[in-house]
């Protein structure tokens, strides 16, 4: 009972407030309080009240964290002239086509000749999807390549996958030529 009464009061107040508010949205002629422009300003007899107690304003700025990345440079040269070739994809697809399967098969042969190598398969996308969607699409591309390589006999623990979405385009241009280069699975040797 109490809560219903409370609700009633609240609704009554709300409607009291809402009624003039609705009038204001539609500029139909409705009685308005007379404008007070013409009224003489009241005489101010007291000086303005002094401020209340002083409020402390504190400026805080974020502190950066220290560097914590140590890169392994020993593999740089190997990757710069990598025997592993990238596989390319069509728009919004993570399926390996014939050309893609052929490239991946060649990479599998290289890995079989170098059984100590561990490889990261990077999934990349062109810029036409959203940044968020492309992170998922790149992951799917990398996973599709890994699945195919495992089916050709590479141990899964030699293959890691990572998606870079559209974050690291190989060609920065904004045309089909660049986009076709950027839709790829890229291979990086991470241990040898």
């Amino acid at each position, binding site marked *: 009972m109490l809560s219903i009464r409370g609700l009633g*009061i*609240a609704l009554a*107040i709300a409607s*009291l*407030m809402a009624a*003039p*508010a609705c009038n*204001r*949205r539609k500029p139909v002629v409705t009685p*308005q309080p007379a*404008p007070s*422009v013409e009224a003489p*300003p009241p005489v*101010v007899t007291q*000086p*303005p*009240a*002094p*401020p*209340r*107690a*002083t*409020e*402390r*304003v504190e*400026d805080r*700025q*974020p*502190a*950066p*964290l*220290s*560097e*914590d*990345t140590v*890169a*392994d440079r020993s*593999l740089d040269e*190997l*990757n*710069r002239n990598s025997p592993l070739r990238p596989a390319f994809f069509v728009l919004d697809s993570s399926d390996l086509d014939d050309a893609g399967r052929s490239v991946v098969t060649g990479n599998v042969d290289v890995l079989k000749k170098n059984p100590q190598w561990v490889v*990261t398969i990077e999934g990349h996308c062109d810029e*036409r*999807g*959203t*940044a*968020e*969607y492309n*992170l*998922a*699409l790149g*992951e*799917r591309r990398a*996973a599709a390549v890994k699945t195919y390589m495992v089916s050709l006999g590479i141990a899964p623990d030699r293959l*890691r996958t*990572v998606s870079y979405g559209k*974050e*690291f385009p190989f060609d920065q241009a*904004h045309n089909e030529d660049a986009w076709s280069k950027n839709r790829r699975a890229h291979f990086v040797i*991470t241990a040898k």
Partner: protein
Amino acid sequence: MKRLRTHAVLLAILVAATGLWPLAAQNQNQQPEIELVIGGDGNSPPHYAIPDFVAASADATEIAQTISQVLWDDLAFEREFDLIPRDVYKSIPPARSPEQVPFASWREVGADAVFFGSVQRSGDKVVVQVRLFNVRTRQQVFSKEYSGTASNPRLYAHTVADEVHLQQRALKGVARTKLSFVSDRNRERLLGPIDNREVKEIYVSDYDGANQRRITTTRQLNLNPSWSPDAKSVAYSSYRNLTPQIFVSLIYQGVLETPTKSTTVSNMMPVFSPDGSKIAFVTNRDGNTEIYVMNRDGSNVRRLTNHPAYESTPTWSPNGQQIAFTSDRTGKAQVYIMNAADGSNVRRLTVSESEADRATWSPAPFNEIAYAGRTSSNGFDIKIHELATGMVRQITFGEGSNESPAYSPNGKHLAFTSTRAGGTQVFTIGRDGRGLKQITRSGNNQTPAWSQ
């Protein structure tokens, strides 16, 4: 007392929801002596004048100017008042004291409200006094004194703007809120086997783009920042251990938490629940990307979606009971909603888009979801889906590609990225599509998040 409180709450809801000026509601206010809320003529919002603040000491001139200029910008940003252009009152000599405010002159230029501010500086210490007067009644409705350092004068203006918006419009202003985003502006190269990659770090700035600074120095890829509800932490994903993992940076302490620690599966796109206790995120730990939720410390991991398609980009409803997300289960990315507790009751939200991503749930009192909808083969525009009516309205219109919307904490604004100005930059815009403002200009900047 209780009734008064109810009244105040309803007033706040009404003002925020309708953007209208509740004249009659003020008249019910039971404070006969001073009417605190300054109205305008008839139906129009009140006209505000912000003359330069007075320097009460010789070296305070620059700070005084900054504060009055930033206050002007802050009040203009919310569009609750009509700000009289400064040129109009250039000829009115600034009052040297609050007792000397020339009300007749202010009335002549049509001002309903006028500020008086003074700044006293001694060394690095600053004292700022601010008053707001009703020009018609010549009564003071706001009076405060602030003290602090001279290092960031803008913060005094932001504080005044927030307090005036709260007092005059029952509005939670955004002047002291912050943005976080990803940027490659440092043009540093990624360490490792590939030479030609630019690192992306997480940045934080004031809501208006001032004070942009980096909060990560990993020289790696860092993505998708999101704020904790207390605005003290930023969660993001970082590739420092090859696969993306979730990090929570307590940005004022320089402390880093690592709720996920895998080196083989990815954990990314963290978003805090509205109460800050949980993080929804995206992981491929079960083979393809699905949405999971965990406690902030990484414990109690639970799976919410289970579908062979990909699921990503979660966003919480304001009460924490639902999560909107993206799935391409129909072949193209679309936005769906599910129950946050167990992933049940999945339903599709976007039914008329060819593609939609990065849903962002508005805060109350608005009840809507913003997202990026594909509007051309190469690009997206920001759209807003009203949940009550199912109506969709478009906020941007094909100038570049517009992505990654994020609501301001009062729901009146969105941050997003656009390619319209060269590179990818962060912008803000009103939820009505007005008031576009560019926030970043250096390098490429992406996936903004807006703090409380």
